[in-house]
């Protein structure tokens, strides 16, 4: 069996696949999966995997792994020094590495916060409910339901014989920033029935600092006293942000009392707070690149037609035809 052994796991590294654990929302599982689906998919594309193959999501960096078999690898996402046996190599490119090589990723200085390591054949941990993704809140999936530790031996899938080295050209890589703009659609619980129109202008009008207590379950923003269109949540609770419990979509901008939180891939599936707007899928990857100190996010309101156009553009970028052969 092909394997890779973790030498240094860094801040938090988890096995993730895309689109994660679907069809389990009604049982209380958010999908998990890569917080930045663009970089995950790009890394898989470069090594010849399907987008669904499992990669490693590396938070901040300081990660080292030894490939115990010949492999093709690619790292995409936040820029950090990448070396193979001490020799610098480029990110957003595939590399052939012989058995025994040590791959090391230094610290991402920013902008950006997460990088994805794909290996041809994918990280072949046992699927749970149809996915290899690690669900940190439920402590399940991935490798033993937890972030990786030094010494973990990860199984790799069957090698894909793709001879050519490839690169995602710089022009096709998304721009990273410390001041993010993220497109979102209003609702399901917005103005005029839950929030005031002026609250919506505030939500979409100002930059929101990213709180340091953000993680894969959610990006916490900054408390704000919204005006609300109601004086209370009625039977659902005293605060006007309270509603009778319902299920949440991934990317929900959930207002918990006074605190807006963008629900991440490991968030709670349901709860009793309004969702004023929802991040569109084509921009959801950005929240995986928010740094938890100093970054800000501004939401831009778009229509469903805008969201569909954005999705089409993103999918077109993540295609074989975009790649350059090196």
């Amino acid at each position: 069996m092909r394997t890779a052994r973790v030498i240094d796991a860094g801040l938090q590294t988890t096995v993730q696949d895309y689109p994660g654990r679907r069809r389990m929302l009604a049982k209380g599982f958010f999908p998990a999966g890569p917080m930045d689906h663009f970089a995950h998919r790009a890394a898989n594309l470069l090594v010849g995997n399907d987008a669904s193959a499992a990669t490693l999501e590396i938070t901040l960096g300081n990660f080292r792994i030894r490939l115990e078999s010949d492999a093709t690898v690619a790292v995409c996402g936040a820029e950090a020094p990448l070396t193979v046996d001490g020799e610098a190599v480029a990110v957003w490119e595939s590399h052939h590495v012989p058995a025994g090589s040590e791959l090391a990723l230094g610290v991402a200085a920013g902008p950006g916060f997460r990088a994805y390591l794909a290996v041809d054949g994918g990280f072949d941990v046992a699927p749970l409910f149809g996915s290899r993704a690690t669900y940190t809140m439920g402590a399940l999936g991935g490798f033993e339901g937890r972030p990786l530790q030094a010494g973990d031996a990860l199984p790799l899938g069957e090698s894909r014989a793709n001879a050519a080295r490839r690169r995602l050209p710089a022009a096709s890589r998304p721009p990273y920033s410390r001041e993010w703009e993220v497109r979102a659609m209003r609702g399901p619980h917005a103005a005029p029935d839950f929030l005031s129109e002026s609250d919506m202008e505030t939500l979409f009008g100002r930059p929101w600092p990213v709180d340091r207590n953000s993680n894969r379950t959610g990006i916490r923003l900054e408390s704000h006293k919204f005006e609300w269109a109601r004086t209370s949540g009625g039977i659902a609770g005293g605060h006007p942000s309270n509603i009778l419990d319902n299920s949440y979509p991934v990317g929900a901008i959930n207002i918990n009392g006074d605190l807006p939180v963008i629900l991440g891939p490991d968030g709670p599936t349901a709860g009793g707070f309004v969702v004023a707007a929802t991040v569109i899928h084509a921009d959801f990857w950005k929240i995986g690149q928010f740094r938890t100190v100093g970054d800000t996010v501004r939401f831009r309101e778009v229509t469903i037609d805008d969201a569909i156009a954005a999705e089409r553009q993103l999918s077109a970028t993540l295609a074989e035809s975009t790649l350059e052969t090196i």
Partner: protein
Amino acid sequence: MATTTTAIIDRREGEDGKPIITYRFAGDRGVLVEYGEMEFDLTLNFFMLGVDAALQADPPAGMVETAPGFRSILVMYEPSELSASELVDHLRSVHDGLGSEQEMTIPSRVVHMPIAFDDTTSREAVERYIRTIRKDAPNAEGGTNIDYIVRYNGFRDREELYSAVLASEQWSAFMGFFPGLPFMFPLDPRQTIFVPKYNPTRTWTAEGAVGVGGPCVAIYPVESAGGYQLFGRTIPIYDIRQRNKVFRESPLFMRPGDRIQFHRVEEEELLQTFEDVHGDRYRYRIEESPFDVGAFLAWLPTIADEADEHRRRREAAAAATPVP
């Protein structure tokens, strides 16, 4: 269809004994459909379950999954295969094809579960809370949440609270928040318990803990944080290791539409049962028993006066009790 600046896709007034239906955007891959107004009315939950079953039986191509709430369904879809407007059209036809709530029979199981009231782990969770999170919370006075639940609901004593829990089947309305967690509500309105949640929340709760928050009763599937007021402990409802036969088909035991009947046991017996569950010696007591919504709705008026009296007593007690 929607204009550029609305969250509401469409709204249809109630007719033919069906509730008001509101369709809302939930991003570019989801539609949230809501039934009725924001009222604590179990018939809305019954109607939702009927719709969800019909939708599962006849899903439109491109529908990924549904996620129920108390009176709503979040429908997730693949936009390359299905548009929001096509999905809403499909939902309309599902709604049109259904009878009124009164005519529904919902697949249901009666599930018998042991409960030990005021158990050691519930007290430990409260003690930890007092020690590490908040020492002056009114809901944690005396190292237990139970006296607060009693006070907030105007019960004479703890025994009257325990009787209320045992006297009604608990309706599992939907699951969520955390893997395998059922949101349950008593079917008998004379036995409703209502209590505010923790503020701030607790960092530790034992597996199997039973608590109440707002009008909702929940069982904690795994050791976790939590915000409900704890009053007892039952046996496992989730086991990813599938050690008991009941978890072979799925590690998640509870389903929406289940009716949970608690039976009082001493803590010693509960702990023994916990071990027997993991040793695959215990057999869960489950009866298939379809739920006749019409019969339930016909029964409600016969106890309406008692339910009103219960509610008045509860509201008077709540008004005189501090909130956490």
